[in-house]
């Protein structure tokens, strides 16, 4: 019984030591992440149109990624390029970018729908 307790406290000490917040390096600027400041006067308020515009810009980036991914697949299949790993890299990047785009788009559309369905 005593032994068990000793073990448990040892484990919890180890966990505390590992997860102690002080052991984590402090971030350079704590304001740069976390909750957005409400009523902050330093930054211009982002409205829905800005968000849509940002998504539009991001779409062209994702399109570039998809284009280079398609290009590398074509090059691989036509024998111009024999490096499969560069194809893997391009496809992984395009996939990741597209998933992020879809996630943000769904969220935006959801926000728009909720706003439109609001009872006046």
């Amino acid at each position, binding site marked *: 019984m005593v032994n068990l307790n000793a073990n448990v406290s040892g484990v919890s000490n180890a966990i505390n030591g590992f997860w102690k917040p002080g052991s984590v390096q402090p971030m350079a600027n704590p304001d740069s992440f976390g909750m957005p400041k409400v009523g902050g006067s330093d930054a211009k308020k982002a409205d829905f149109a800005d968000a849509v515009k940002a998504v539009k810009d991001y779409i062209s980036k994702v399109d570039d990624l998809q284009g280079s991914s398609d290009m590398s697949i074509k090059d691989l299949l036509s024998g111009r390029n024999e*490096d499969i*790993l560069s194809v893997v890299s391009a496809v*992984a990047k395009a996939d*990741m970018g597209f998933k992020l785009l879809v996630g*943000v788009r*769904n969220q935006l559309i959801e926000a728009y729908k909720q706003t439109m369905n609001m009872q006046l």
Partner: protein
Amino acid sequence: MEVDNIFSPIDIAISGLQAQGKQMEVISSNVANARTGDAGNGEPYRRLEAAFKSDEDMGGVRVDKILADMSDFLRVFDPGNPHADEEGYIAMPNVNLPVEMMNLNIATRVYQANAAVLKRYQQMVENTLELLR
């Protein structure tokens, strides 16, 4: 976080895969030439070794140079060979097949590890995007 930044783990893992691919190339050359008595320059094939170099801070890895192993050639007693010297010995490449097998295993494991890092990172990003839904 910059958009470009989320891709850097992919680039690093891919660079590891490419470096290990090059290492495989070097090992297969060594194994294929393990009995090559003449490498074109009058002496037997010299074992090659890839030297890796890391890119600048938090970058990937790349093959810096492919160096020749300057250790002595193996001397094999073979008096019937037309290339044998007056004592009946011929020089054979300094390739040691068990060593190459070990290097091949290491290269395979490191390749797998890099592929696992890539896969895990993709899963991490997908998990993060799940939070958006």
